[in-house]
């Protein structure tokens, strides 16, 4: 029996902000509806391609999605950032409605788009367990029955009557996940909540999910960037690309298709007239796997190259150098790096290349800012987020830790044991 059936689901978004123009659109739409006509803006909406600037204010974030999930199955949902995963999850968890299509779900549904939704910092752990449990759809009696188990699972017994604002972030997450893990819905929808918490705890959570799978009749939808976790948990997967269902089938095939797919086109950027008059001209910046084109996926195990094509027009190029700052998804600066005396800038065309060793970056997205510096003190030209790239994790053997190590980078230092 199908636990979930999704028919022709599409979602249209209006870009830009709400302002005076919105009223006229609303009225126009209302007028069409009154006469039984189709939404006038659905026809001009465009498919969701972030890189190209479209002409329409309306975009389809999801377009004609069809799939079904059997009872007792764990379905992985994978795809790049912006492919529509979150939108699909939001529609399935009823946070927002579809523009067209319909979905049928059999059984009680619980969704975990984040852990600890509704946690109030002033309330104690105990009070929050009840509140959070009720928000997720449990009754007071159910929570009471499982309370001891939840506290036990999260290991914060000592602090259970302390306001959660005094908790460490780890304790907070564990308690929140404890509540979530003890939900007993027939259908569970999980976003990448495993990305938080320490290693031991992640293991516990993955174990809990396996337990959920093995118990009779539970259906789970699991969205993640963590291919290793998807691979070990899901029997079936769907791949979303630009709001469309690109693949539905076995997890292995979905993952390999995802890994071999086109990388974000932002991995290469060509510039025109970008620079400072009579000083320099920036032509192109690209990020790629060693010896491959920028279209190819960057994995944790690839050697990653950053190429800068720049023309120096000034007569004394030795006065200048370039610097990059690198930021992670959270906008935190990781480090900066500059071209050094081994690769000085020269007059005319320069093709600078810097290599990051394999395994240096952990999976995630990275953003680079570009600085053109004069005499090691004046930054003449600054462009934030000039280019970005995404690193994905490769598969890991079964039984190995599947979560992310802390931090964004994992440099391999020289170890000595004498």
């Amino acid at each position, binding site marked *: 029996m199908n636990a979930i059936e999704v028919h022709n689901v599409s979602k249209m978004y209006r870009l830009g902000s*709400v302002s005076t123009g919105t009223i006229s659109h609303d009225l126009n739409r209302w007028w069409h509806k009154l006469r039984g006509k189709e939404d006038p803006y659905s026809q001009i909406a465009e498919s969701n391609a972030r890189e190209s600037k479209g002409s329409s204010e309306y975009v389809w974030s999801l377009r004609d999605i069809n799939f079904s999930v059997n009872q007792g199955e764990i379905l992985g949902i994978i795809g790049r950032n912006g492919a529509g995963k979150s939108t699909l999850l*939001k529609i399935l968890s009823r946070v927002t409605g*579809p523009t067209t299509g319909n979905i049928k779900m059999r059984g009680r*549904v619980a969704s975990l788009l984040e852990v600890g939704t*509704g946690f109030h910092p002033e309330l104690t752990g105990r009070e929050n367990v009840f509140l959070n449990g009720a928000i997720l759809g449990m009754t007071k009696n159910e929570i009471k029955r499982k309370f001891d188990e939840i506290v036990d699972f999260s290991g914060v017994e000592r602090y259970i009557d302390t306001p959660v604002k005094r908790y460490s972030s780890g304790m907070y997450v564990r308690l929140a996940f404890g509540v979530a893990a003890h939900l007993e819905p027939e259908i569970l929808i999980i976003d990448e909540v495993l990305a938080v918490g320490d290693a031991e705890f992640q293991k516990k959570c993955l174990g809990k999910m396996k337990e959920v799978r093995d118990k009779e009749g539970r259906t789970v939808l699991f969205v993640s960037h963590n291919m290793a976790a998807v691979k070990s948990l899901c029997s079936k997967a769907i791949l979303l690309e630009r709001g469309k269902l690109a693949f539905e089938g076995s997890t292995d095939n979905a993952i390999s298709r995802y890994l071999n797919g086109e990388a974000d086109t932002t991995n290469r950027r060509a510039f025109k007239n970008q620079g400072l008059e009579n000083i320099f001209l920036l032509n192109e910046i690209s990020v790629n796997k060693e010896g491959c084109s920028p279209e190819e996926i960057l994995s944790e195990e690839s050697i990653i190259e950053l190429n800068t094509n720049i023309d120096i027009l000034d007569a004394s190029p030795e006065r200048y150098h370039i610097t990059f700052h690198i930021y992670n998804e959270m906008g935190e600066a990781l480090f900066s790096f500059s071209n050094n005396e081994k690769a000085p800038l020269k007059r005319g065309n320069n093709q600078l290349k810097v290599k990051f060793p394999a395994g240096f970056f952990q999976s995630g997205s990275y953003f680079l800012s570009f600085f053109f510096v004069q005499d090691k003190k004046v930054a003449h030209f600054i462009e934030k987020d000039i280019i970005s790239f995404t690193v994905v994790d490769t598969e890991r053997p079964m039984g190995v830790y599947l979560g992310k190590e802390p931090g964004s980078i994992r440099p391999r230092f020289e170890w000595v044991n004498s």
Partner: protein
Amino acid sequence: MDSTHITEIKPEKPLFHLGLRDVWRYRDLVMLMVRRDFVATYKQTVLGPIWFFIQPLFTTLIFTFLFAKMGKLSTDGLPPILFYLCGITFWNYFSSCLKINSTTFIMNQGVFGKVYFPRLVIPISVTISNLVKLGIQFILFLVIYMYFIIQGNTVQITGYIVYLPLNIILLGLMGLALGILFSSLTTKYRDLTYLLDFGVQLLMYATIIFPVSAFPENFKWMAKFNPIMPLIETTKLGLLGLGTFDLTSYLSSIAFTVICLLVGIISFNKTEQNFMDVV
């Protein structure tokens, strides 16, 4: 809640689907939210729940000074403090239900964006926690009431006091109804929040500062169009023995509340499905 429970998600819900059964299933959440409101509001304050008393007391003193002493406005011969405190206590119930509920979607977007539960749970719990607040403030009113009686003032309870529970229910429901009606609109057009604040302020002066008897003859009809007026007037009549009772206006207040409630719930339910895309 078994596996025969079927959830259907469609672009449009049926217009007259009020979803009250869903709300009933989440009744535990309603009560937990009420509890949260109380615990969270006064944690880490020195005076704690005493703040419940301070606000109406000071407002009363200011009104007494401004309107009764300086403006020499009529209070129907009642001690101004009692007159204003009675009005403020009950008015506050209505106005806080209205104001807080009118921002339901904006204030709760964090939770609403992450998990589904019937959104009506929030305004209902707000209305209940304000009812508890009214209960506490009513105790303050009773204390001051006793003081004035001991002082030998001629305030008397009349038979209209039997309307008091109904008045309270209607005030709460009207605040809830108008609140959720506005919340569906403020979600997209924030301008309305300012307009609403302003309107509530004006309505307050028209309702609790000037008794109907103080309205100039030409403007008495205006009082008739104020749906809260009959409720406040009946309350004053019951508790303080002065005021007017007009069955027609009272019934139209009830009708107004019921209609607003229906329209409010329908538009609220319509908004809840897609509001995340517009906030």
